[in-house]
């Protein structure tokens, strides 16, 4: 496998590429079950986590993945760096390049930042979330988790529920799930649907209760609490009433429905505390699988010539 020079979005991967990543992740999963959780595969490589936005699981997940492959990891948080003195993204990236890093894992609040980086510097660029654009490794780990939970993604009826307009997870998941043969329905209030949503080629619904009896997967997106200030939905209670997943709705879903969430969960908003703790909610599996999938992505990007 010859990996891409930069991983910006799901649409640059073919379904064969995705298949390769998922199968490789399966092999790497075993490493995390060993007494000594480390293999020498990427020794001598250096990766940097360049995070301009807060993150818990994505950053830690990439760090654990890189360390299990014996790569060296540098962590960069914008708040504690020269960025606070006004250093630009480009100069920061050139500094990292000068230090000889092999890959830059970047999260940024502006869509397109990872793409720009890939034009400016030599190291491999991996998008760990850019603005409202894309979050490809989240989509890959979601595919991997769903495949483990259901056996196959093809033919699965997936409802992506919540703030579709502002969610990079929704965009990447929609592409990834559709590419692997799942049937995706986007569910949310009209104010949280992006303009021109029809062009995505997915079904759209504003009524969660109508969708629930006929879906295999309920993917609950995080309500970005800061959006309420923009007046896009009246209040959290109403949102929760109409689009939150609670025990009542779970009873109307197929018995073997799979519940997914990218984390962090707002308990009591998009997902009730009871459903958050329901064994059909695979959010912690998603975290576990994230490490294996990111090992596969790092290996794809750095293991070749």
């Amino acid at each position, binding site marked *: *496998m010859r990996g891409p020079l930069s991983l910006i979005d799901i649409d640059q991967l073919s379904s064969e590429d995705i298949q390769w990543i998922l199968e490789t992740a399966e*092999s*790497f999963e075993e490493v995390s079950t060993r007494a000594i959780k480390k293999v020498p595969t990427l020794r001598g490589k250096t990766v940097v986590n360049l995070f301009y936005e807060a993150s818990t699981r994505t950053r830690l997940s990439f760090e654990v993945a890189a360390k299990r492959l014996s790569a060296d990891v540098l962590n960069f948080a914008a708040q504690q760096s020269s960025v606070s003195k006004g250093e630009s993204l480009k100069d920061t990236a050139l500094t990292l390049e000068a230090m000889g890093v092999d890959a830059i894992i970047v999260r940024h609040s502006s869509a397109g930042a990872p793409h720009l980086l890939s034009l400016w510097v030599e190291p491999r660029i991996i998008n760990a979330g850019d603005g409202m654009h894309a979050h490809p490794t989240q989509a890959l780990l979601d595919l991997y988790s769903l495949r483990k939970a259901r056996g196959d993604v093809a033919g699965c009826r997936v409802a992506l529920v919540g703030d579709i307009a502002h969610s990079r997870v929704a965009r990447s998941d929609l592409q990834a799930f559709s590419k692997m043969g799942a049937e995706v329905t986007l569910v949310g209030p009209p104010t949280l649907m992006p303009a021109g949503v029809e062009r995505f080629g997915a079904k759209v619904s504003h009524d969660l209760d109508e969708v629930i009896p006929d879906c295999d997967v309920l993917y609950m997106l995080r309500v970005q609490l800061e959006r309420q200030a923009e007046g896009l939905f009246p209040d959290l209670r109403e949102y929760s009433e109409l689009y939150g997943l609670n025990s009542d709705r779970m009873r109307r879903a197929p018995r073997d429905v799979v519940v997914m969430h990218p984390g962090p969960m707002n308990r009591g908003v998009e997902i009730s505390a009871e459903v958050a703790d329901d064994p059909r909610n695979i959010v912690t599996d998603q975290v576990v699988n994230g490490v294996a999938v990111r090992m596969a992505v790092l*290996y794809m990007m750095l293991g070749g010539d």
Partner: protein
Amino acid sequence: MCALEEMTGVSKESVRVMEEPDIKRALNRIAHEIMEKNRGAQDLCIIGIRTRGVYMAERIAGIIREVEGVAVPVGTLDIAMYRDDIGTKPSPEVRSTDIPCDVTGMSVILVDDVLFTGRSARAAMDAVIDFGRPHSIQLAVLIDRGHRELPIRADYVGKNIPTSRTEKVRVALRELDGTDAVDRDSQEPEGLDSSVREGS
């Protein structure tokens, strides 16, 4: 293949060096040598190196079970994560590894189809040691074709086959290829295919 040979002027000659009964006898002998050297089958763990080593390991364990009445644990090892040429060619495929027992204190028999440069055996030894501290590691191969690049030798050899560096040795096993056979393909002129790896 023929068209390619005509176009490039490369002549290729294939010689059958082992037939099914030869392979059966060789594995039988290897299994007996393993039992002899280890005084039975206690504390043995047989680990096949992917791909064809895995089937050989299962066959050897089957013979030991028949003779000694002991079910020896059989494992599968993929060495891609331990290769020394990472970063010099496209990322090799990584497949699963399954070591069914704690190797600490065990005598580990690594099984591979062809021993060539010794680099696969080196990678496999490093991998096994990451799982624990075995009492010993021994190496069993169906074919030893020479041309070592590391100080490694096999403890059990089915057949020594003198080869030139550019020749290919192809091992076919029933479980994967539908038939048991070993062929040597000579390829002229020399030096065309320097990337020929053992086994594959």
